[in-house]
Protein backbone atom coordinates (compact mmCIF):
# COMPACT_ATOMS: atom_id res chain seq x y z
CA UNK A 1 0.00 0.00 0.00
CA UNK A 2 2.71 2.47 0.98
CA UNK A 3 4.54 1.38 -2.10
CA UNK A 4 1.61 2.25 -4.36
CA UNK A 5 1.37 5.57 -2.60
CA UNK A 6 5.00 6.41 -3.33
CA UNK A 7 4.49 5.25 -6.88
CA UNK A 8 1.51 7.54 -7.19
CA UNK A 9 3.34 10.49 -5.76
CA UNK A 10 6.42 10.22 -7.92
CA UNK A 11 5.60 8.69 -11.23
CA UNK A 12 2.29 6.93 -11.57
CA UNK A 13 0.21 9.97 -11.11
CA UNK A 14 -3.54 9.94 -11.79
CA UNK A 15 -3.07 12.74 -14.34
CA UNK A 16 -1.32 10.22 -16.50
CA UNK A 17 -4.34 8.03 -16.99
CA UNK A 18 -5.27 10.26 -19.90
CA UNK A 19 -1.95 9.43 -21.54
CA UNK A 20 -2.42 5.72 -20.87
CA UNK A 21 -5.90 5.85 -22.40
CA UNK A 22 -4.44 7.61 -25.44
CA UNK A 23 -1.80 4.91 -25.76
CA UNK A 24 -4.46 2.21 -25.54
CA UNK A 25 -6.52 3.97 -28.17
CA UNK A 26 -3.61 4.25 -30.59
CA UNK A 27 -2.66 0.61 -30.09
CA UNK A 28 -6.24 -0.52 -30.64
CA UNK A 29 -6.54 1.61 -33.76
CA UNK A 30 -3.32 0.14 -35.14
CA UNK A 31 -4.39 -3.42 -34.41
CA UNK A 32 -7.58 -2.87 -36.34
CA UNK A 33 -6.32 -0.71 -39.21
CA UNK A 34 -2.58 -0.82 -39.76
CA UNK A 35 -1.45 -3.81 -41.83
CA UNK A 36 1.24 -6.02 -40.25
CA UNK A 37 1.15 -4.11 -36.98
CA UNK A 38 1.56 -7.27 -34.89
CA UNK A 39 4.95 -7.98 -36.33
CA UNK A 40 8.31 -8.16 -34.58
CA UNK A 41 9.72 -5.76 -37.16
CA UNK A 42 7.20 -3.08 -36.14
CA UNK A 43 8.33 -3.41 -32.55
CA UNK A 44 12.02 -3.12 -33.45
CA UNK A 45 11.53 -0.10 -35.68
CA UNK A 46 9.49 1.72 -33.07
CA UNK A 47 11.82 0.91 -30.19
CA UNK A 48 14.90 2.07 -32.06
CA UNK A 49 13.10 5.25 -33.16
CA UNK A 50 11.56 6.10 -29.81
CA UNK A 51 14.75 5.62 -27.79
CA UNK A 52 16.31 8.98 -28.64
CA UNK A 53 13.06 10.88 -28.02
CA UNK A 54 12.60 9.08 -24.70
CA UNK A 55 16.17 9.70 -23.52
CA UNK A 56 16.02 13.42 -24.28
CA UNK A 57 12.47 13.70 -22.91
CA UNK A 58 13.60 12.29 -19.54
CA UNK A 59 16.29 14.96 -19.32
CA UNK A 60 13.78 17.59 -20.38
CA UNK A 61 11.43 16.39 -17.64
CA UNK A 62 14.08 17.08 -15.01
CA UNK A 63 14.69 20.58 -16.39
CA UNK A 64 10.97 21.37 -16.63
CA UNK A 65 10.46 20.08 -13.09
CA UNK A 66 12.66 22.96 -11.87
CA UNK A 67 10.37 25.36 -13.75
CA UNK A 68 12.82 25.70 -16.65
CA UNK A 69 13.01 24.60 -20.27
CA UNK A 70 15.89 23.50 -22.48
CA UNK A 71 15.76 24.50 -26.15
CA UNK A 72 19.35 23.44 -26.81
CA UNK A 73 18.89 19.65 -26.72
CA UNK A 74 18.76 19.22 -30.50
CA UNK A 75 21.83 21.39 -31.04
CA UNK A 76 23.74 19.49 -28.36
CA UNK A 77 22.79 16.23 -30.09
CA UNK A 78 24.25 17.64 -33.31
CA UNK A 79 27.41 18.69 -31.50
CA UNK A 80 28.08 15.28 -29.94
CA UNK A 81 26.94 13.45 -33.07
CA UNK A 82 29.40 15.43 -35.18
CA UNK A 83 32.27 14.96 -32.71
CA UNK A 84 32.10 11.17 -32.41
CA UNK A 85 32.97 10.27 -36.03
CA UNK A 86 35.63 13.00 -36.06
CA UNK A 87 37.32 11.18 -33.20
CA UNK A 88 37.08 7.57 -34.31
CA UNK A 89 37.96 8.45 -37.91
CA UNK A 90 41.07 10.33 -36.75
CA UNK A 91 44.63 9.02 -37.04
CA UNK A 92 44.80 8.61 -33.29
CA UNK A 93 41.87 6.18 -33.35
CA UNK A 94 43.39 4.31 -36.31
CA UNK A 95 46.49 3.72 -34.18
CA UNK A 96 44.60 2.80 -30.98
CA UNK A 97 41.19 1.41 -31.99
CA UNK A 98 39.94 0.63 -28.49
CA UNK A 99 41.05 3.90 -26.96
CA UNK A 100 39.68 5.77 -29.97
CA UNK A 101 36.29 4.11 -29.58
CA UNK A 102 36.13 4.88 -25.86
CA UNK A 103 37.17 8.48 -26.52
CA UNK A 104 34.59 8.84 -29.27
CA UNK A 105 31.88 8.02 -26.76
CA UNK A 106 33.23 9.80 -23.69
CA UNK A 107 34.51 13.04 -25.23
CA UNK A 108 31.23 14.00 -26.96
CA UNK A 109 29.28 13.32 -23.77
CA UNK A 110 31.78 15.40 -21.78
CA UNK A 111 31.35 18.25 -24.25
CA UNK A 112 27.58 17.92 -23.89
CA UNK A 113 27.91 18.04 -20.10
CA UNK A 114 29.92 21.26 -20.43
CA UNK A 115 27.12 22.77 -22.51
CA UNK A 116 24.78 21.79 -19.68
CA UNK A 117 27.00 23.55 -17.12
CA UNK A 118 26.94 26.65 -19.34
CA UNK A 119 23.12 26.59 -19.56
CA UNK A 120 22.78 25.90 -15.84
CA UNK A 121 25.12 28.67 -14.73
CA UNK A 122 23.31 31.20 -16.92
CA UNK A 123 19.93 30.15 -15.56
CA UNK A 124 20.91 29.92 -11.91
CA UNK A 125 23.75 32.28 -11.03
CA UNK A 126 23.07 34.90 -13.71
CA UNK A 127 19.29 34.59 -13.38
CA UNK A 128 18.71 34.51 -17.15
CA UNK A 129 15.33 33.15 -18.25
CA UNK A 130 15.71 29.51 -19.35
CA UNK A 131 14.26 30.13 -22.82
CA UNK A 132 16.86 32.81 -23.52
CA UNK A 133 19.77 31.04 -21.87
CA UNK A 134 19.29 27.85 -23.84
CA UNK A 135 18.56 29.86 -26.99
CA UNK A 136 22.30 30.60 -27.20
CA UNK A 137 23.25 26.99 -27.84
CA UNK A 138 20.11 26.43 -29.87
CA UNK A 139 21.42 29.03 -32.32
CA UNK A 140 25.15 28.41 -32.16
CA UNK A 141 25.49 24.72 -31.23
CA UNK A 142 24.50 23.34 -34.61
CA UNK A 143 26.64 26.01 -36.26
CA UNK A 144 29.63 24.84 -34.20
CA UNK A 145 28.97 21.24 -35.25
CA UNK A 146 28.86 22.32 -38.89
CA UNK A 147 32.03 24.36 -38.52
CA UNK A 148 33.83 21.31 -37.10
CA UNK A 149 32.71 19.06 -39.94
CA UNK A 150 32.78 21.81 -42.55
CA UNK A 151 29.14 20.97 -43.14
CA UNK A 152 30.12 17.60 -44.67
CA UNK A 153 28.24 14.38 -44.26
CA UNK A 154 30.54 11.94 -42.45
CA UNK A 155 29.90 8.30 -43.31
CA UNK A 156 31.68 5.40 -41.67
CA UNK A 157 31.71 1.67 -41.07
CA UNK A 158 32.51 1.00 -37.47
CA UNK A 159 30.59 -2.02 -36.15
CA UNK A 160 31.58 -1.48 -32.52
CA UNK A 161 30.34 2.12 -32.49
CA UNK A 162 27.22 1.26 -34.48
CA UNK A 163 26.31 -1.24 -31.76
CA UNK A 164 24.91 1.76 -29.86
CA UNK A 165 22.19 2.10 -32.46
CA UNK A 166 21.92 -1.29 -34.15
CA UNK A 167 22.96 -3.81 -31.51
CA UNK A 168 20.51 -6.27 -30.00
CA UNK A 169 20.33 -7.64 -26.46
CA UNK A 170 17.95 -10.54 -25.79
CA UNK A 171 16.47 -9.92 -29.21
CA UNK A 172 15.53 -6.31 -28.57
CA UNK A 173 17.40 -3.16 -29.72
CA UNK A 174 20.23 -2.15 -27.42
CA UNK A 175 18.99 1.44 -27.09
CA UNK A 176 15.66 0.17 -25.81
CA UNK A 177 17.43 -1.41 -22.84
CA UNK A 178 19.42 1.77 -22.42
CA UNK A 179 16.17 3.73 -22.09
CA UNK A 180 14.94 1.29 -19.47
CA UNK A 181 18.19 1.52 -17.51
CA UNK A 182 18.23 5.33 -17.60
CA UNK A 183 14.56 5.48 -16.63
CA UNK A 184 15.08 3.23 -13.61
CA UNK A 185 18.13 5.19 -12.46
CA UNK A 186 16.42 8.56 -12.88
CA UNK A 187 13.24 7.27 -11.25
CA UNK A 188 15.29 6.18 -8.26
CA UNK A 189 17.04 9.54 -8.27
CA UNK A 190 13.80 11.55 -8.34
CA UNK A 191 11.96 9.50 -5.73
CA UNK A 192 14.69 8.35 -3.37
CA UNK A 193 17.76 10.55 -3.53
CA UNK A 194 18.34 13.85 -1.76
CA UNK A 195 19.00 15.49 -5.10
CA UNK A 196 15.60 14.36 -6.37
CA UNK A 197 13.83 15.79 -3.33
CA UNK A 198 15.67 19.07 -3.75
CA UNK A 199 14.85 19.13 -7.47
CA UNK A 200 11.10 18.87 -6.85
CA UNK A 201 11.31 21.34 -3.98
CA UNK A 202 13.02 23.93 -6.20
CA UNK A 203 10.39 23.44 -8.91
CA UNK A 204 7.54 23.55 -6.42
CA UNK A 205 8.50 26.76 -4.70
CA UNK A 206 11.93 28.19 -5.36
CA UNK A 207 11.83 30.82 -2.62
CA UNK A 208 10.75 28.33 0.01
CA UNK A 209 13.44 25.93 -1.17
CA UNK A 210 16.11 28.62 -0.91
CA UNK A 211 14.93 29.69 2.55
CA UNK A 212 15.00 26.10 3.77
CA UNK A 213 18.66 25.89 2.84
CA UNK A 214 18.51 23.93 -0.40
CA UNK A 215 21.43 24.82 -2.74
CA UNK A 216 19.04 26.02 -5.45
CA UNK A 217 21.74 27.07 -7.92
CA UNK A 218 23.56 23.76 -7.76
CA UNK A 219 20.34 21.76 -8.07
CA UNK A 220 19.32 23.69 -11.17
CA UNK A 221 22.73 23.28 -12.76
CA UNK A 222 22.45 19.56 -12.02
CA UNK A 223 19.18 19.33 -13.95
CA UNK A 224 20.60 21.12 -17.01
CA UNK A 225 23.78 19.04 -16.92
CA UNK A 226 21.87 15.75 -16.82
CA UNK A 227 19.60 16.91 -19.64
CA UNK A 228 22.59 17.94 -21.77
CA UNK A 229 24.44 14.68 -21.06
CA UNK A 230 21.41 12.64 -22.09
CA UNK A 231 21.09 14.75 -25.26
CA UNK A 232 24.74 14.03 -26.04
CA UNK A 233 24.08 10.32 -25.65
CA UNK A 234 21.02 10.57 -27.90
CA UNK A 235 23.15 12.30 -30.54
CA UNK A 236 25.58 9.36 -30.49
CA UNK A 237 22.70 6.89 -30.91
CA UNK A 238 21.30 8.76 -33.93
CA UNK A 239 24.72 8.70 -35.59
CA UNK A 240 25.17 5.01 -34.74
CA UNK A 241 21.76 4.11 -36.24
CA UNK A 242 22.55 5.84 -39.53
CA UNK A 243 26.28 5.00 -39.72
CA UNK A 244 26.50 8.58 -40.88
CA UNK A 245 26.61 11.99 -39.29
CA UNK A 246 25.05 15.09 -40.81
CA UNK A 247 25.34 18.01 -38.40
CA UNK A 248 22.49 19.83 -40.11
CA UNK A 249 20.01 17.05 -39.39
CA UNK A 250 20.92 15.28 -36.14
CA UNK A 251 18.38 16.14 -33.49
CA UNK A 252 16.60 18.68 -35.67
CA UNK A 253 13.37 19.77 -33.92
CA UNK A 254 14.15 17.34 -31.09
CA UNK A 255 13.42 20.04 -28.50
CA UNK A 256 9.82 20.06 -29.66
CA UNK A 257 9.42 16.29 -29.49
CA UNK A 258 11.04 16.18 -26.08
CA UNK A 259 8.91 18.97 -24.63
CA UNK A 260 5.78 17.41 -26.14
CA UNK A 261 6.67 14.00 -24.70
CA UNK A 262 7.31 15.47 -21.26
CA UNK A 263 4.05 17.42 -21.26
CA UNK A 264 1.99 14.49 -22.56
CA UNK A 265 3.61 12.40 -19.84
CA UNK A 266 2.20 14.67 -17.16
CA UNK A 267 5.06 17.07 -16.42
CA UNK A 268 3.73 20.41 -15.23
CA UNK A 269 5.32 23.35 -17.01
CA UNK A 270 5.28 25.30 -13.74
CA UNK A 271 7.61 22.70 -12.26
CA UNK A 272 7.47 20.62 -9.12
CA UNK A 273 6.79 17.28 -10.74
CA UNK A 274 9.07 14.90 -12.61
CA UNK A 275 7.23 11.83 -13.88
CA UNK A 276 10.13 9.96 -15.49
CA UNK A 277 8.13 7.00 -16.75
CA UNK A 278 5.51 9.48 -17.90
CA UNK A 279 8.10 11.05 -20.18
CA UNK A 280 8.89 7.63 -21.65
CA UNK A 281 5.17 7.02 -22.12
CA UNK A 282 4.82 10.44 -23.76
CA UNK A 283 7.70 9.64 -26.11
CA UNK A 284 6.06 6.31 -27.02
CA UNK A 285 2.77 8.08 -27.79
CA UNK A 286 4.47 10.71 -29.97
CA UNK A 287 6.40 8.01 -31.83
CA UNK A 288 3.32 5.81 -32.29
CA UNK A 289 1.27 8.68 -33.67
CA UNK A 290 4.03 9.39 -36.18
CA UNK A 291 4.28 5.70 -37.05
CA UNK A 292 0.51 5.21 -37.33
CA UNK A 293 0.12 8.08 -39.75
CA UNK A 294 3.13 7.05 -41.83
CA UNK A 295 2.16 3.37 -41.91
CA UNK A 296 -1.26 4.34 -43.19
CA UNK A 297 0.15 6.43 -45.99
CA UNK A 298 -0.66 9.79 -44.43
CA UNK A 299 1.98 12.39 -45.18
CA UNK A 300 4.55 13.53 -42.68
CA UNK A 301 3.08 17.02 -42.79
CA UNK A 302 -0.24 15.89 -41.37
CA UNK A 303 1.66 14.17 -38.56
CA UNK A 304 2.90 17.63 -37.55
CA UNK A 305 -0.66 18.89 -37.26
CA UNK A 306 -1.62 15.81 -35.26
CA UNK A 307 1.30 16.42 -32.91
CA UNK A 308 0.11 20.00 -32.43
CA UNK A 309 -3.36 18.73 -31.55
CA UNK A 310 -1.98 16.25 -29.02
CA UNK A 311 0.08 18.92 -27.26
CA UNK A 312 -2.87 21.31 -26.99
CA UNK A 313 -5.19 18.57 -25.74
CA UNK A 314 -2.71 17.31 -23.15
CA UNK A 315 -2.01 20.74 -21.69
CA UNK A 316 -5.66 21.77 -21.82
CA UNK A 317 -6.64 18.69 -19.81
CA UNK A 318 -3.87 19.42 -17.29
CA UNK A 319 -5.09 22.98 -17.03
CA UNK A 320 -8.74 22.02 -16.65
CA UNK A 321 -7.93 19.62 -13.82
CA UNK A 322 -6.04 22.29 -11.94
CA UNK A 323 -8.87 24.81 -12.01
Amino acid at each position, binding site marked *: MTRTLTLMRAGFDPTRHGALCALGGILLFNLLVTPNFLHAQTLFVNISQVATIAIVAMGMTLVISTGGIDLSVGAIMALSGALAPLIFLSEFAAANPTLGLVASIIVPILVALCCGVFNGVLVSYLNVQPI*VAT*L*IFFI*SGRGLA*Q*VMTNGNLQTFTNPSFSYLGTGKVLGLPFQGWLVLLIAVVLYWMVTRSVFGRQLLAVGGNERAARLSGIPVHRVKIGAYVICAGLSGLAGLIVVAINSASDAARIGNLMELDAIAAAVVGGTLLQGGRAPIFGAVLGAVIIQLVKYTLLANGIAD*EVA*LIAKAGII*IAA*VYLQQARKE
Partner: protein
Amino acid sequence: MTCAGFFRPGGHSFGVWVVLVAMILFGLLRYENFGGAYNISSFLNYNAMFIVISVGMCFVILTGGIDLSVGSVAAFTSVVAAYLSPYGIQVALPGAVMAGLAIGGLNAVFVVLMRIPPFIATLATMLGAKGGALVISGAQTISIDWELNFTKLGMEKAFNLLPWTIVITAVVVVGLWIVLERTSLGRTVLAIGGGEDASTMMGLNVNRAKIFVYVLSGGCGGMAGVFLASGFGAGQPLEGVGWELSAIASVVVGGTLLTGGMGSVGATVAGALLLGLVFNILNFENGRGVISLSAYWQMVIRGGFLFVVILLQSHLARRSKGATQ
Protein backbone atom coordinates in the same frame (compact mmCIF):
# COMPACT_ATOMS: atom_id res chain seq x y z
CA MET B 1 8.34 54.61 -15.56
CA THR B 2 7.79 51.65 -17.79
CA CYS B 3 7.41 53.56 -21.01
CA ALA B 4 10.34 53.78 -23.34
CA GLY B 5 10.55 56.21 -26.19
CA PHE B 6 12.02 55.64 -29.59
CA PHE B 7 15.41 57.08 -28.80
CA ARG B 8 15.14 57.57 -25.08
CA PRO B 9 18.63 57.19 -23.64
CA GLY B 10 19.13 55.29 -20.42
CA GLY B 11 17.41 52.12 -19.32
CA HIS B 12 18.05 48.85 -21.05
CA SER B 13 17.77 50.02 -24.61
CA PHE B 14 20.57 52.55 -24.63
CA GLY B 15 23.32 50.00 -25.27
CA VAL B 16 21.80 48.69 -28.46
CA TRP B 17 21.83 52.14 -30.10
CA VAL B 18 25.45 52.71 -29.14
CA VAL B 19 26.52 49.35 -30.55
CA LEU B 20 24.43 49.88 -33.69
CA VAL B 21 25.99 53.28 -34.38
CA ALA B 22 29.46 51.89 -33.66
CA MET B 23 28.96 49.03 -36.08
CA ILE B 24 27.66 51.31 -38.82
CA LEU B 25 30.66 53.63 -38.35
CA PHE B 26 32.99 50.63 -38.43
CA GLY B 27 31.40 49.45 -41.68
CA LEU B 28 31.48 52.89 -43.27
CA LEU B 29 35.16 53.41 -42.46
CA ARG B 30 36.32 49.94 -43.38
CA TYR B 31 34.40 49.09 -46.53
CA GLU B 32 34.07 51.20 -49.61
CA ASN B 33 30.59 50.14 -50.71
CA PHE B 34 29.08 49.74 -47.26
CA GLY B 35 27.23 53.05 -47.40
CA GLY B 36 26.30 52.60 -51.06
CA ALA B 37 22.68 52.72 -52.15
CA TYR B 38 22.80 49.11 -53.32
CA ASN B 39 24.02 47.70 -50.01
CA ILE B 40 21.63 49.76 -47.91
CA SER B 41 18.65 48.94 -50.08
CA SER B 42 19.33 45.20 -50.33
CA PHE B 43 20.18 45.01 -46.63
CA LEU B 44 16.91 46.65 -45.60
CA ASN B 45 14.96 44.72 -48.19
CA TYR B 46 16.24 41.38 -46.90
CA ASN B 47 15.85 42.29 -43.23
CA ALA B 48 12.37 43.81 -43.61
CA MET B 49 10.66 40.51 -42.78
CA PHE B 50 12.76 40.03 -39.67
CA ILE B 51 12.07 43.57 -38.51
CA VAL B 52 8.33 43.11 -38.94
CA ILE B 53 8.12 39.82 -37.02
CA SER B 54 10.46 41.17 -34.32
CA VAL B 55 8.18 44.13 -33.70
CA GLY B 56 5.15 41.82 -33.45
CA MET B 57 7.12 39.59 -31.10
CA CYS B 58 8.03 42.63 -29.01
CA PHE B 59 4.34 43.26 -28.26
CA VAL B 60 3.77 39.65 -27.23
CA ILE B 61 6.86 39.62 -25.02
CA LEU B 62 5.83 42.93 -23.43
CA THR B 63 2.76 41.15 -22.04
CA GLY B 64 5.03 38.46 -20.63
CA GLY B 65 4.07 35.97 -23.35
CA ILE B 66 5.93 34.48 -26.28
CA ASP B 67 5.02 33.57 -29.87
CA LEU B 68 6.95 30.65 -31.32
CA SER B 69 4.71 30.33 -34.37
CA VAL B 70 5.82 33.39 -36.39
CA GLY B 71 8.33 31.52 -38.59
CA SER B 72 5.80 28.87 -39.55
CA VAL B 73 3.15 31.55 -40.06
CA ALA B 74 5.49 33.31 -42.51
CA ALA B 75 6.08 30.03 -44.36
CA PHE B 76 2.33 29.32 -44.48
CA THR B 77 1.36 32.80 -45.62
CA SER B 78 4.12 32.90 -48.25
CA VAL B 79 2.39 29.91 -49.83
CA VAL B 80 -1.01 31.62 -49.51
CA ALA B 81 0.45 34.74 -51.14
CA ALA B 82 1.93 32.65 -53.95
CA TYR B 83 -1.44 31.04 -54.68
CA LEU B 84 -3.21 34.41 -54.62
CA SER B 85 -0.56 36.25 -56.64
CA PRO B 86 -2.30 35.77 -60.04
CA TYR B 87 -5.13 37.94 -58.72
CA GLY B 88 -2.70 40.77 -58.16
CA ILE B 89 -0.99 42.28 -55.19
CA GLN B 90 -4.22 43.94 -54.03
CA VAL B 91 -5.58 40.45 -53.29
CA ALA B 92 -2.43 38.53 -52.40
CA LEU B 93 -1.14 40.93 -49.77
CA PRO B 94 -4.34 41.31 -47.73
CA GLY B 95 -5.10 37.60 -48.21
CA ALA B 96 -1.78 36.50 -46.76
CA VAL B 97 -1.97 38.99 -43.91
CA MET B 98 -5.51 37.78 -43.12
CA ALA B 99 -4.24 34.20 -43.00
CA GLY B 100 -1.58 35.34 -40.54
CA LEU B 101 -4.16 37.20 -38.45
CA ALA B 102 -6.30 34.05 -38.37
CA ILE B 103 -3.45 31.93 -37.01
CA GLY B 104 -2.73 34.69 -34.51
CA GLY B 105 -6.39 34.52 -33.54
CA LEU B 106 -6.01 30.80 -32.92
CA ASN B 107 -3.07 31.55 -30.61
CA ALA B 108 -5.22 34.09 -28.80
CA VAL B 109 -7.98 31.51 -28.31
CA PHE B 110 -5.50 28.99 -26.88
CA VAL B 111 -3.76 31.48 -24.59
CA VAL B 112 -6.58 33.74 -23.47
CA LEU B 113 -9.68 31.55 -23.54
CA MET B 114 -8.21 28.09 -22.89
CA ARG B 115 -5.48 29.41 -20.58
CA ILE B 116 -2.78 27.26 -22.16
CA PRO B 117 0.73 28.64 -21.43
CA PRO B 118 1.87 30.79 -24.40
CA PHE B 119 5.03 28.76 -24.90
CA ILE B 120 3.06 25.54 -25.45
CA ALA B 121 0.13 27.08 -27.31
CA THR B 122 2.31 28.79 -29.89
CA LEU B 123 4.56 25.72 -30.11
CA ALA B 124 1.49 23.79 -31.21
CA THR B 125 0.42 26.39 -33.79
CA MET B 126 4.03 26.46 -34.99
CA LEU B 127 3.81 22.74 -35.76
CA GLY B 128 0.28 23.11 -37.11
CA ALA B 129 1.10 26.04 -39.42
CA LYS B 130 4.21 24.28 -40.69
CA GLY B 131 2.16 21.17 -41.40
CA GLY B 132 -0.52 23.32 -43.03
CA ALA B 133 2.03 25.04 -45.26
CA LEU B 134 3.40 21.68 -46.39
CA VAL B 135 -0.08 20.25 -46.98
CA ILE B 136 -1.44 23.08 -49.11
CA SER B 137 1.78 23.37 -51.09
CA GLY B 138 2.36 19.63 -51.45
CA ALA B 139 5.79 20.25 -49.85
CA GLN B 140 6.87 22.08 -53.02
CA THR B 141 7.92 25.67 -53.45
CA ILE B 142 5.12 27.46 -55.30
CA SER B 143 6.77 29.63 -57.89
CA ILE B 144 5.30 33.01 -58.76
CA ASP B 145 5.28 34.37 -62.29
CA TRP B 146 7.86 37.16 -62.51
CA GLU B 147 5.51 39.07 -64.82
CA LEU B 148 2.99 39.56 -62.00
CA ASN B 149 2.99 42.81 -60.09
CA PHE B 150 3.33 40.83 -56.85
CA THR B 151 7.07 40.28 -57.26
CA LYS B 152 7.63 44.00 -57.84
CA LEU B 153 7.09 44.63 -54.14
CA GLY B 154 10.78 44.41 -53.32
CA MET B 155 12.07 46.11 -56.49
CA GLU B 156 9.70 48.81 -57.62
CA LYS B 157 10.27 52.03 -55.78
CA ALA B 158 7.49 53.85 -54.03
CA PHE B 159 7.44 57.53 -55.04
CA ASN B 160 10.75 56.82 -56.84
CA LEU B 161 12.46 56.71 -53.49
CA LEU B 162 12.59 53.39 -51.68
CA PRO B 163 11.39 49.87 -52.46
CA TRP B 164 7.82 49.17 -51.34
CA THR B 165 8.98 46.52 -48.89
CA ILE B 166 10.95 49.10 -46.93
CA VAL B 167 8.16 51.68 -47.07
CA ILE B 168 5.61 49.16 -45.77
CA THR B 169 7.99 48.11 -43.00
CA ALA B 170 8.54 51.71 -41.98
CA VAL B 171 4.78 52.33 -41.87
CA VAL B 172 4.24 49.20 -39.75
CA VAL B 173 7.03 50.18 -37.35
CA VAL B 174 5.90 53.77 -36.90
CA GLY B 175 2.25 52.74 -36.61
CA LEU B 176 3.00 50.20 -33.92
CA TRP B 177 5.29 52.61 -32.12
CA ILE B 178 2.38 55.05 -31.91
CA VAL B 179 0.06 52.27 -30.70
CA LEU B 180 2.47 51.29 -27.94
CA GLU B 181 3.45 54.75 -26.80
CA ARG B 182 0.36 56.86 -27.42
CA THR B 183 -2.75 54.71 -27.03
CA SER B 184 -4.50 53.22 -24.02
CA LEU B 185 -4.18 49.80 -25.66
CA GLY B 186 -0.41 50.21 -25.71
CA ARG B 187 -0.41 51.33 -22.08
CA THR B 188 -2.43 48.25 -21.16
CA VAL B 189 0.07 46.01 -23.00
CA LEU B 190 2.90 47.51 -20.94
CA ALA B 191 0.87 47.30 -17.74
CA ILE B 192 0.09 43.59 -18.21
CA GLY B 193 3.78 42.77 -18.37
CA GLY B 194 4.35 44.82 -15.23
CA GLY B 195 1.74 42.82 -13.34
CA GLU B 196 -1.21 41.01 -14.86
CA ASP B 197 -3.28 40.65 -11.70
CA ALA B 198 -2.74 44.27 -10.74
CA SER B 199 -3.79 45.37 -14.23
CA THR B 200 -6.98 43.33 -14.00
CA MET B 201 -7.79 44.83 -10.62
CA MET B 202 -7.20 48.31 -11.95
CA GLY B 203 -9.99 47.60 -14.41
CA LEU B 204 -7.83 47.39 -17.50
CA ASN B 205 -9.16 45.16 -20.25
CA VAL B 206 -6.37 42.60 -19.99
CA ASN B 207 -7.94 39.95 -22.19
CA ARG B 208 -8.59 42.38 -25.03
CA ALA B 209 -4.95 43.53 -24.98
CA LYS B 210 -3.65 39.96 -24.90
CA ILE B 211 -5.87 38.94 -27.80
CA PHE B 212 -4.60 42.01 -29.64
CA VAL B 213 -0.90 41.12 -29.25
CA TYR B 214 -1.26 37.54 -30.48
CA VAL B 215 -3.43 38.54 -33.44
CA LEU B 216 -0.96 41.34 -34.21
CA SER B 217 2.02 38.99 -34.09
CA GLY B 218 0.21 36.62 -36.45
CA GLY B 219 -0.48 39.50 -38.82
CA CYS B 220 3.19 40.51 -38.71
CA GLY B 221 4.07 36.91 -39.56
CA GLY B 222 1.66 37.19 -42.50
CA MET B 223 3.35 40.39 -43.69
CA ALA B 224 6.75 38.68 -43.43
CA GLY B 225 5.32 35.84 -45.53
CA VAL B 226 4.36 38.35 -48.22
CA PHE B 227 7.89 39.81 -48.23
CA LEU B 228 9.35 36.30 -48.32
CA ALA B 229 7.22 35.26 -51.29
CA SER B 230 7.82 38.45 -53.25
CA GLY B 231 11.53 38.60 -52.48
CA PHE B 232 12.23 35.03 -53.58
CA GLY B 233 9.53 34.89 -56.24
CA ALA B 234 8.01 31.79 -54.65
CA GLY B 235 5.92 30.51 -51.77
CA GLN B 236 8.38 28.82 -49.42
CA PRO B 237 6.75 26.18 -47.18
CA LEU B 238 10.14 25.04 -45.83
CA GLU B 239 11.37 28.50 -44.83
CA GLY B 240 10.88 30.19 -41.49
CA VAL B 241 12.69 27.61 -39.38
CA GLY B 242 14.29 29.37 -36.43
CA TRP B 243 12.81 32.77 -37.32
CA GLU B 244 10.94 32.94 -34.04
CA LEU B 245 14.23 32.61 -32.21
CA SER B 246 15.88 35.30 -34.32
CA ALA B 247 12.93 37.52 -33.52
CA ILE B 248 13.18 36.77 -29.80
CA ALA B 249 16.91 37.46 -30.01
CA SER B 250 16.22 40.84 -31.66
CA VAL B 251 13.74 41.75 -28.96
CA VAL B 252 16.14 40.70 -26.21
CA VAL B 253 19.07 42.49 -27.84
CA GLY B 254 16.83 45.56 -27.96
CA GLY B 255 16.70 45.48 -24.18
CA THR B 256 13.14 44.24 -23.72
CA LEU B 257 12.91 42.03 -20.68
CA LEU B 258 11.37 38.65 -21.39
CA THR B 259 9.28 39.03 -18.26
CA GLY B 260 7.53 41.88 -20.02
CA GLY B 261 6.52 45.33 -18.91
CA MET B 262 9.50 47.15 -20.30
CA GLY B 263 10.81 47.68 -23.78
CA SER B 264 10.24 49.61 -26.96
CA VAL B 265 9.50 49.22 -30.63
CA GLY B 266 12.47 51.34 -31.66
CA ALA B 267 15.00 49.34 -29.67
CA THR B 268 13.58 46.13 -31.11
CA VAL B 269 14.11 47.45 -34.64
CA ALA B 270 17.64 48.39 -33.61
CA GLY B 271 18.14 44.86 -32.28
CA ALA B 272 16.96 43.33 -35.54
CA LEU B 273 19.20 45.67 -37.56
CA LEU B 274 22.13 44.83 -35.30
CA LEU B 275 21.76 41.06 -35.80
CA GLY B 276 21.40 41.63 -39.54
CA LEU B 277 24.48 43.87 -39.62
CA VAL B 278 26.58 41.09 -38.11
CA PHE B 279 25.90 39.10 -41.29
CA ASN B 280 26.37 42.07 -43.56
CA ILE B 281 29.76 42.94 -42.09
CA LEU B 282 30.82 39.30 -42.21
CA ASN B 283 29.99 39.23 -45.91
CA PHE B 284 32.10 42.31 -46.52
CA GLU B 285 34.93 40.86 -44.49
CA ASN B 286 34.75 37.64 -46.51
CA GLY B 287 34.72 39.74 -49.67
CA ARG B 288 38.02 41.36 -48.73
CA GLY B 289 39.55 37.93 -48.51
CA VAL B 290 41.17 38.70 -45.17
CA ILE B 291 39.24 36.00 -43.42
CA SER B 292 37.12 33.29 -44.87
CA LEU B 293 34.28 32.36 -42.59
CA SER B 294 31.75 29.85 -43.82
CA ALA B 295 28.03 30.40 -43.44
CA TYR B 296 28.16 28.06 -40.46
CA TRP B 297 30.24 30.56 -38.51
CA GLN B 298 27.47 33.10 -38.80
CA MET B 299 25.24 31.06 -36.53
CA VAL B 300 28.05 30.63 -34.02
CA ILE B 301 28.76 34.35 -34.04
CA ARG B 302 25.06 35.14 -33.70
CA GLY B 303 24.86 32.87 -30.66
CA GLY B 304 27.98 34.46 -29.19
CA PHE B 305 26.49 37.89 -29.77
CA LEU B 306 23.33 36.91 -27.95
CA PHE B 307 25.46 35.61 -25.08
CA VAL B 308 27.28 38.93 -24.71
CA VAL B 309 24.00 40.86 -24.77
CA ILE B 310 22.48 38.58 -22.15
CA LEU B 311 25.50 39.07 -19.90
CA LEU B 312 25.14 42.84 -20.26
CA GLN B 313 21.40 42.70 -19.59
CA SER B 314 21.84 40.58 -16.52
CA HIS B 315 24.49 42.99 -15.27
CA LEU B 316 22.26 46.00 -15.93
CA ALA B 317 19.26 44.35 -14.33
CA ARG B 318 21.23 43.60 -11.21
CA ARG B 319 22.61 47.11 -11.04
CA SER B 320 19.20 48.75 -11.40
CA LYS B 321 17.81 46.33 -8.81
CA GLY B 322 20.62 47.36 -6.48
CA ALA B 323 19.82 51.02 -7.09
CA THR B 324 16.16 50.70 -6.16
CA GLN B 325 16.77 48.68 -3.05
